[in-house]
């Protein structure tokens, strides 16, 4: 309602404002300064563009050797262009489509030019260096004594042709050089290693020169051909036309604006007069309000105006008020709070204390609101005297507090005997909370101890005499009965009608200490004061609960004194009891205060130790107990030596509950007795369980083979120098049939497969699958160079290994040179003579061989030399801490050097950082695999990698 009225009021004002803004903007659209600035920008763009082309040419011809002038010129063009597009005097986005289009063309040309210039800079830098390095590389090659003469001559020709490119070249020149490079590229295979590397270097640099020279020529041509000049001209023409149109328009708007302004002026004068009239009405509303009202300055707290009612109520005259501040109205102790509150803006409704002129203190409710008064903020206040109401509230609160905090329970019923109030003591005594008691019948605490007639008597007495008191048996919330002393009185109103009943009561039952003593005796051994079997079991159970929460272990020791009967028989029961007490003292000293020592009876003790890290900790306690008992016991005149047999169980391995743990500890104790007393034994159910577990896993593995649950992942292996994906390593995974198990990592099933001998058929499956996959990739024309497959020790020991592999190759149709078999050092070193024979056969058939995890096992270098190995794979543990660990750097370095010496290629495993990769590359390591380069992935993902050579 109000909102819509305000909107109706605001609408015309907004309309006028919009009209004014519109006219003003249009009238101002012509600015001579802006105009000359635009013209200057346009001409500078054209000048600078020519300069830019000149700088590019100078750079190409090495007349300049820094890119700073190029960057500076370009950035100046961009600054002018930005000025035109987005600056204070921008010429676009002003509704001139022609201008916008022309500007867009300029921007596009500029962008094209900038992109070309970025290309120019990076290619020019490269070309400079290639021209520098290419002749050097030719020199280095020619200086090699092993370099054949005819190749030297061919390179000299190439050198001359390449250098001639600088003097301007045609398409056919480039083609001629390309042919020469192609021809020379076929040479290296026939060369000795030293000139081979140098020749490769020459060709690499020649290739660079060729590629960059061709591209640079094109880029420079494109830069100089960019049509910036024409775009800038069109922009200029479009701008001139637009300027002409605007000039005419602006004059028109200026005229209209003048008219509108005159109208506004007239309207302003008439509004001013109307406002003065309406003001009088509002003043009367303030003056004649029945409540005291005033207006004050929130900053100085000075009164600015007060009304009639305020003068009457407070006793100050109007003049007195206007010379006072709010502080004078408040008692002195409230002033600091007032000053604080004054800082908070906005309206507030609160009760404050005020002092009248006659000194009387009153409480007033204040409602206030800030608003703009003349040129400052003023606060309008309405005061409501609530002094009487406040006093009444105070008394009520006092009474309520007394009731609430009384030591006796208090209940108040309504006339219908429903509970309307209970105090804190009520809750303490009965156990019912306030919420539970409210609204209940007065009878809800009744016990069956009294009959209905009894209660009727009570209530009739209250009706007659107004009160009753006596002892009652009551029922608590928990059901327990308790005796209480209660007095009930009726409350009457001024007319003499009963409105409420008040009941006051106290609990007169006493704490039963004797009962608690009984409780202790039931749980403890009378002779030693130690917990008995019942309490011990409870403690164990509690400990198990805690252990479950914390994931810790709990140990139970069952201790039986050896030959205690003999001592009893020979020295008498009195001495026997003394001994048990002495043993108790020593046992307690062996454990922490939180652990429990108990006596089950006779000479049987138990100990509960909590919070163990490993089961071995329990053994240590047992050892401690034995040591503690070893010293002689002095009983009267006798010196007695005692030993103990101890059984130990651990939770959770040896039982899931107190009973089982104790029983098993007892059994273990008997084993200790049987094995000659004075020692301790573990009860280990774990052995059986582990054996069972293994059986299940073996069965599952066997089934997995039949159900085809294995699958292969492949990890890519890259050539470090070229970045090419050279090989993949096949890695077996087990897709567990059970929901949620997912892929079982090889670490969990391979050891079991090895123990059970299942590794041989699994290995064979892996080999077959990997070969078939490789064949498929070859057929698709995307295969990497090698498929690496790990061979297990058991496979390697098979007598017919070579035949089996040959059969698989035959079956899958894979040529042997594509297969790489990975074996570990320990496999070949187990029987070097046999290994040499088998490896020889495999190698002769064309299969590549690699030593896996090299550096971790024991290797004899002399054997290594005899084996026909192609690759060494540096174990990941040596790569992991490069470059932090200097030992690892040294090891990796020497493995690479060793491989070079034996003419082997090196593959690094577990490459995870760029730093490791550059280190390995520069040390001469040929290939690498690892998470930095590629994680193991399924065949589909690898296939995508193979199909998409990198965008270069």
């Amino acid at each position, binding site marked *: 309602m109000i909102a819509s009225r305000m909107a109706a009021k605001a609408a015309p004002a907004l309309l006028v404002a919009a009209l*004014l803004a519109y006219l*003003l903007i249009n*009238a*101002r659209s012509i*600015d*001579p*300064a802006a105009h000359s*600035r635009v013209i200057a920008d346009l001409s500078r763009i054209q000048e600078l563009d020519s300069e830019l082309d000149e700088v590019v040419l100078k750079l190409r011809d090495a007349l300049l*050797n*820094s*890119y*700073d*002038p190029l*960057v*500076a010129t370009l*950035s*100046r063009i961009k600054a002018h262009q930005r000025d035109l597009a987005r600056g*204070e005097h921008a010429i676009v986005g002003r509704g001139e489509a022609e201008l916008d289009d022309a500007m867009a063309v300029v921007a596009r040309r500029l962008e094209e030019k900038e992109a070309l210039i*970025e290309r120019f*800079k990076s290619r020019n*830098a490269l070309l400079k*260096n290639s021209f520098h*390095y290419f002749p050097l590389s030719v020199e280095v090659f020619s200086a090699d004594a092993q370099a054949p003469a005819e190749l030297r001559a061919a390179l000299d020709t190439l050198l001359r042709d390449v250098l001639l490119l600088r003097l301007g070249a045609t398409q056919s020149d480039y083609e001629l050089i390309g042919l020469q490079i192609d021809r020379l590229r076929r040479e290296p295979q026939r060369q000795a290693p030293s000139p081979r590397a140098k020749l490769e270097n020459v060709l*690499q*640099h020649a290739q*660079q020169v060729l590629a960059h020279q061709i591209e640079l020529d094109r880029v420079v041509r494109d830069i100089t051909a960019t049509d910036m000049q024409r775009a800038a001209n069109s922009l200029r023409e479009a701008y001139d036309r637009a300027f002409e149109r605007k000039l005419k328009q602006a004059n028109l708007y200026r005229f209209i*604006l*003048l008219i*509108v*302004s005159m109208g*506004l002026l007239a*309207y*302003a004068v008439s*509004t*001013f007069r109307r*406002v003065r009239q*309406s*003001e009088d009405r*509002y*003043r009367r509303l*303030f003056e004649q309000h029945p409540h005291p009202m005033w207006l004050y300055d929130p900053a100085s707290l000075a009164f*600015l105006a007060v009304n009639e009612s305020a003068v009457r109520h407070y006793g100050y005259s109007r003049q007195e008020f206007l010379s006072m501040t709010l502080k004078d109205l408040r008692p002195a102790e409230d002033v600091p709070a007032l000053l604080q509150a004054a800082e908070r803006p906005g309206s507030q409704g609160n009760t404050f204390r005020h002092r009248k002129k006659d000194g009387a203190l009153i409480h007033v409710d204040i409602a206030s609101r800030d608003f*703009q*008064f*003349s040129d400052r903020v*003023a606060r309008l206040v309405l005061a409501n005297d609530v002094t009487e109401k406040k006093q009444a509230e105070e008394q009520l609160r006092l009474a309520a507090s007394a009731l609430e905090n009384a030591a006796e329970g208090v209940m108040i019923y309504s006339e219908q005997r429903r509970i309307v109030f209970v105090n804190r003591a009520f809750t303490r005594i009965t156990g019912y909370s306030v919420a539970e008691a409210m609204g209940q019948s007065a009878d809800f605490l009744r016990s069956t101890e009294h009959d209905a007639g009894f209660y009727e008597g009570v209530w009739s007495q209250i009706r007659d005499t107004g009160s009753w008191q006596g002892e009652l048996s009551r029922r608590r919330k928990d059901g327990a009965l308790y005796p209480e002393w209660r007095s009930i009185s009726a409350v009457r109103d001024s007319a003499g009608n009963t409105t409420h009943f008040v009941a006051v009561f106290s609990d007169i039952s006493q704490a039963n200490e004797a009962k608690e003593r009984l409780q202790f005796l039931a749980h403890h051994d009378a002779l030693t004061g130690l917990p008995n079997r019942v309490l011990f079991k409870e403690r164990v159970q509690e400990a198990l609960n805690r252990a479950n929460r914390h994931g810790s272990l709990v140990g139970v020791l069952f201790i039986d004194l050896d030959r205690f009967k003999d001592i009893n028989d020979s020295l008498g029961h009195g001495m026997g009891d003394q001994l048990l007490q002495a043993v108790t003292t020593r046992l307690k000293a062996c454990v922490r205060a939180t652990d429990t020592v108990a006596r089950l009876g006779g000479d049987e003790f138990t100990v509960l130790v909590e919070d163990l890290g490993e089961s071995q900790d329990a053994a240590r306690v047992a050892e401690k107990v034995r040591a503690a008992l070893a010293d002689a016991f002095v009983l009267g005149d006798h010196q007695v030596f005692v030993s103990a047999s101890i059984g130990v169980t651990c939770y959770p391995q040896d039982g899931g509950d107190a009973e089982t743990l104790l029983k098993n500890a007892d059994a273990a104790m008997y084993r200790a007795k049987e094995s000659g007393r004075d020692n301790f034994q573990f009860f280990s159910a774990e052995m059986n369980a582990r054996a069972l577990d293994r059986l299940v896993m073996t069965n599952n593995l066997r089934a997995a083979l039949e159900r085809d649950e294995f699958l292969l992942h492949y990890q890519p292996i*890259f050539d*470090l120098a070229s*970045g090419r994906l050279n090989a993949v390593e096949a890695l077996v995974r087990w897709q567990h049939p059970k929901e949620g198990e997912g892929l079982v990592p090889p670490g969990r099933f391979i050891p079991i497969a090895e123990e059970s001998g299942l590794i041989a058929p699994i290995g064979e499956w892996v080999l077959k699958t990997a070969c078939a996959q490789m064949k498929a990739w070859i057929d698709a024309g995307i295969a990497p160079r090698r498929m690496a497959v790990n061979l297990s020790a058991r496979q390697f020991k098979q007598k017919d290994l070579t035949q089996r592999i040959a059969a698989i190759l035959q079956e899958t149709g894979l040529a042997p040179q594509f297969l790489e078999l990975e074996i570990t050092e320990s496999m070949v070193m187990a029987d070097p003579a046999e290994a040499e024979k088998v490896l020889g056969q495999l190698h002769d058939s064309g299969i590549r061989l690699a030593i896996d995890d090299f550096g971790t096992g024991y290797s004899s270098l002399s054997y290594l030399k005899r084996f026909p190995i192609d690759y060494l794979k540096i174990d990941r543990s040596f790569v992991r801490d490069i*470059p932090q660990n200097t030992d690892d750097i040294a090891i990796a370095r020497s493995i690479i050097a060793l491989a070079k010496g034996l003419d082997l290629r090196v593959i690094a495993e577990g490459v995870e950082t*760029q*730093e490791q*990769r*550059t280190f390995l590359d*520069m040390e001469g390591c040929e290939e690498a695999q690892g998470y*930095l*380069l*590629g994680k193991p992935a399924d065949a589909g993902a690898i296939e995508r990698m193979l199909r998409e050579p*990198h965008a*270069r």
Partner: protein
Amino acid sequence: MPIRFIAVKRAAVPLVLLGVALVILWQAGLTLLAPPSQATFSPLALHPEPSAEPISPIPQALPLDERKIALGRRLFHDLRLSRDNSVACASCHDLGKGGVDGLQQSVGIGGQRGDMNAPTVFNSGFNFRQFWNGRAATLEDQVDGPVHNAKEMGSSWPEVIAKLARDAEYPAQFRAVYGTGIEPAHIRDAIAEFERSLITPDSRFDKHLRGERDALTRDEVRGYQLFKRYGCIACHQGVNVGGNLYERLGVMQPYFIGESDTVAANLGRMAASGNPEDIHMFKVPSLRNVALTAPYFHDGSVATLERAVFIMGQYQLGVAIPPGDVALIIKFLNTLTGEYAGAAP
């Protein structure tokens, strides 16, 4: 005393109208001849004198606005630019540590590790673009990056301005410098102006260039010759010894292979342009003060200058620079360390 509190608001209406009308008449009758506003100074506009050397010295002073610099310095060290008030520009660009943090990758709010190595803020005004991949054209544009990056400052302009507006001095300072309240453009401008003032002139090499005899030792001069002879100079030239072009990391052989080839941080300019041709193209970094700004490269993966020089030789030039030459080049690089003349914060 007559009271007129109820009508105060309405009395203002005709007064405002009167004012508006007068202003309009004034404006419409005028043809403004305001002088063209002054363009911001760009260090890039400095034209080096044509000289035989491809590297030119850093000017000893630049014409910059001192008041903006003072404001920018305070903002640069202000933790309130980050969401949780834990990170300032200076946290990763420590002026006492060569304008970097010395970490492999910088640490932002909540201890998060970023993907890139913080480049030095010194002499950044001479760079042709900002960030390793050059995605910001100016220092002003660059400011937006870290403020909004969730791993760096994780904030936003409204949030930052709300905090700065509660400061006792900022509102007055911004009004004094810019004539208005705190606005994102003004924060960017002040910080950028301060950054432009972070120059390190008078390095020993610059003194050498200015013709001061004995500014360099014989080894250092030899190092500079090798720097030119090996072709480092082809990219690292100009006033900033780099910082004015893009180049591919891995010219003579690929530097990134396998999956590292396509990791976002390694894409370089392609991440900004989307153009596959720009893959692994990075802004050639300035070598000014390079001795102070280890570790090196966009991902901070190279710990020492020795390794950095060697890797550059291998991958960019196709040459294994012998250790003796690397040592000489590093001697030269050490002479590029200049002096920051500005006051400590």
